[in-house]
């Protein structure tokens, strides 16, 4: 007999808590009692975790979440990528979209063809002109990718922008339907066994809840792992320098674009995430370089609207994700920079990993070590991808951005950048989170061009290459224009939410 733990207590009340509950209830066929209880003084959930990446489709399929129902419930829009404005210089913009960039010629990646033409003196368009998804974003279009792999319409993928608060409710309903119990009240005290393992919690009502296994989903305050078990926090602010965020919901009359907009400002960046009928806006900034009033102004709220307050936000991770009989999922374990668009997926993937390494009564150190190894790898890849944006933004018009150029990047990112800068190659690492096309989109979008041509392109005739590049651009543009408008598509699918309905 290998007994699974006989009870699970999830501490928290946000997205991570209910995503964990829904996924665990499904995996345990509702045969292990799962209780969710709120931590006291929990920081509010980050609404911006509703900006996702295509891996969410796989998770939703596993959870049997049907797309129209989810989209209606969370007022979701489709997401084909992120438009990055003003990162290189004010006025400059590019789209980092999901999916292929151009097409390989024999074994040569498309961006190498582009670089070859550039080095031969031809003016080359932006990298996003060769991404069908990016072209669709520019044209305000959306359609589901084609299933036929010979079609150019099969070369991209998509994700969602969703209301994270509404998604939490959706997942909560899913979890409760599968028998998860929600205990009313809040955690007052955390109880330990003599050997240091967690035993249970007491609530403000005096009620005591005990369990064999605990999941800390209490957000950045990390009530169990950080506070009760004393696992320290390691900051990544060195590479991810924004330490404050201020956010606001703003009604929007115009149809939604199928992309988020991330705009650099002199002391950080701001995000606009389109839901149906409104935008979620946030300004991320370094408090040493910008004061709160100026940050609030950047939100662009209508005159007379109540001013939101800024809150501190430090990116980084707890030194361990799993200690004894407690694992931290979501911000209680690590806080990723929202530039990664991985906040929700990191929650899903952590729960999935926990399911694969599901704790038995005396959870072995080896299983825990393997969980740590895999989780650490994933978070570090995500950290690197976000760090890339700060390190390589071309603008040097403020102290904040000039400082960014001085800070050395993480070693793993440095290795990747060196390889790309020289010859446009990308390393093949284990456990990659982002595709090669993601790295290429952002690197070339930020105008980090490889210094020399791919040798396999040297025998190509520049004129033919330019023709090929032009043709590729036309193909993408035409295919994008053949798609319906994003707003019409939502309506036709019947997932749009009528205002006031």
């Amino acid at each position, binding site marked *: 007999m*290998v*007994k699974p733990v006989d009870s699970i207590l999830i501490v928290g009340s946000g997205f991570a808590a209910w995503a964990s509950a829904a996924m665990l209830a499904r995996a345990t066929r509702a045969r292990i009692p799962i209780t969710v209880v709120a931590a006291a003084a929990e920081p509010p959930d980050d609404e911006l975790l509703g900006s996702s990446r295509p891996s969410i489709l796989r998770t939703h399929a596993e959870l049997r979440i049907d797309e129209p129902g989810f989209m209606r419930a969370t007022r979701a829009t489709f997401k084909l990528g992120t438009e990055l404005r003003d990162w290189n210089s004010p006025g400059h913009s590019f789209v980092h979209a999901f999916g292929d960039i151009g097409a390989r010629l024999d074994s040569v990646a498309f961006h190498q063809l582009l670089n070859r033409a550039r080095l031969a003196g031809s003016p080359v368009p932006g990298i996003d002109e060769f991404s069908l998804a990016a072209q669709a974003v520019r044209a305000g279009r959306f359609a589901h990718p084609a299933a036929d792999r010979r079609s150019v319409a099969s070369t991209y993928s998509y994700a969602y922008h969703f209301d994270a608060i509404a998604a939490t409710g959706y997942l909560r309903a899913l979890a409760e339907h599968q028998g998860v119990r929600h205990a009313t009240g809040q955690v007052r005290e955390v109880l330990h066994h003599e050997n240091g393992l967690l035993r249970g919690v007491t609530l403000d009502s005096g009620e005591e809840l005990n369990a064999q296994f605990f999941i800390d989903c209490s957000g950045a305050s990390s009530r169990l792992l950080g506070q009760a078990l004393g696992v320290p926090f390691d900051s990544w602010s060195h590479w991810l320098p924004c330490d404050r965020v201020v956010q606001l919901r703003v009604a929007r009359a115009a149809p939604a674009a199928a992309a988020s907009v991330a705009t650099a400002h002199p002391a950080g960046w701001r995000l606009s995430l389109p839901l149906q009928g409104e935008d979620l806006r946030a300004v991320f900034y370094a408090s040493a370089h910008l004061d709160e009033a100026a940050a609030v102004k950047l939100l662009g709220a209508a005159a007379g609207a109540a001013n939101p307050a800024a809150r501190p936000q430090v990116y980084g991770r707890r030194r361990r994700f799993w200690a004894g009989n407690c694992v931290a999922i979501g911000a209680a374990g690590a806080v990723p920079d929202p530039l990664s668009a991985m906040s929700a997926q990191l929650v899903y993937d952590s729960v999935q990993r926990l399911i694969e390494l599901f704790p*038995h009564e005396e959870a072995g150190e080896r*299983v825990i070590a*393997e969980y740590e190894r895999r989780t650490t790898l994933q978070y570090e890849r995500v950290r690197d991808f976000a760090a890339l944006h700060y390190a390589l933004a071309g603008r040097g018009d403020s102290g904040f951005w000039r400082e960014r150029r001085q800070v050395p990047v993480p070693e793993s990112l440095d290795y990747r950048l060196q390889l790309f800068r020289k010859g446009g190659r990308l390393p*093949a*690492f284990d456990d990659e989170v982002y595709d090669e096309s993601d790295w290429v989109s952002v690197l070339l979008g930020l105008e980090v061009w490889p210094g020399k041509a791919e040798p396999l392109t040297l*025998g190509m005739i520049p004129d033919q290459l330019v023709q090929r590049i032009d043709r590729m651009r036309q193909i993408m543009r035409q295919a994008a224009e053949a798609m319906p408008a994003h707003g019409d598509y939502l309506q036709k699918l019947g997932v749009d939410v009528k205002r006031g309905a």
Partner: protein
Amino acid sequence: MTAASLSRFFRPEQCSIRLVESAEIGIVGVGEATVPHIRFFNQTLGLDEADFMRKTHATFKLGIEFVDWARLGDAYIHPFGEYGRPLGGVRFHHGWNRLRLAGDDTQIDEYSLPIMAARAARFAPPSSDPASVLSTFSYAFQFDATLFAPYLRAYSEQRGVRRTEGRVVDVQLRGEDGFIESLTLASGERIEGDLFIDCSGFFGLLTEKTLKTGYEDWTHWLPCDRAVAVPCESFGPLLPYTRATARTAGWQWRIPLQHRTGNGYVYSSKFVSDDEAAATLLRHLDGKALAEPRFLKFVTGRRKKTWNRNCVAVGLSGGFVEPLESTSIYLIQAAITHLLELFPDRSFDPVDVAEYNRIMDLEFERVRDFIVLHYHATERDDTPLWDYVRTMSIPDSLAYKIELFRERGVVVNYQQGLFHEPSWLAVYLGQRILPRRYDPLIELAPLDELRRETAATRNLIRQAAATLPTHEEFIARYCAPRS
């Protein structure tokens, strides 16, 4: 293989490719067994499968059978395919392990279609319908390497590769950086080049004899250092798998081709003499030997930099791991693929070279760990070799994987490199590393439900395997030599 691949991607005016071949360097393989990646290589070159098989007298391969490895009398197959179906979201082998710990003695083999087909000497290509159990496997080939080389030579020459027969008598280095500048042949001809690819085998004419790159010796983990090979007449049904039988001081391969069977004994010279090894091999043939036994010497390990200056070592010059899991051709293929991805210009950028060496190190180490597992995970102490490998210390990277599996049946997966979950599973279980525990979530299903579900899978596989034609029939129809 290298010349053919490069000629596929470069036009002659773009990059001129010359190949210097010396008849004095023989081809090692007598019968070559492969892993499924070879099919991707053939597809990239645009080779017609039936034509390739006909010309190299090839047969199909569904896996490798290991006989007498963990204990005398044991036999298991490492198949190219999956075991069973996930049970309520939990990996199948945990369900199997729970039943085993509850006293069920059903072999995991019965949940693998390629194993059941292999045991019945049946074969057909996998179905393209993902819902069919006949889609749950892949396949490779067993072919005559001495026929594959001329096949690739014809392909390469057609695409402009210039081949020169001759012996290299001297290598000239550039004074300023020690890069290779040119080769001088016995005929007096001097051949210059920008990039030199050393395919000279164990000898490492360029990488070692000239550049003194250095070699990392792995003999302490893989003590075999010799092989003796001999072909014999075929006997019995044509098997769609390779067999590796443990012997006193190593192991013996058996590779069935269309027209004969390749055999060899890989052994450690510390534990057996050449004469004894040859005698052992000849005693264990299916049919009459068709040639005199040939001896080979090798040192298992890896060149310290498979890419050094302007010389890339491909094949045995880059490293050698015994052919227990048919990885030689795979490692050649990987070296070529990564070379094309990181193809140099005249500046030979150190960051590209470092990335190439990092990836190839990983490829070699992951293959090495997998091979070491076969030796180390044994209960045999009946001969000095087996007692040594059983008790030796192993690489940390492998110890981590084994412990995690033994503790709870968790297979450590990776994206880069060969051998994934089903392969590790096959060898762990076949070598009697039986997990003490299983994924506890499998406890949530009643034992009876588990028994019913697994029995249904077994039946499905048994019945599906029985519908396949015999390997012999399929070969005769598909790719037998035209008379």
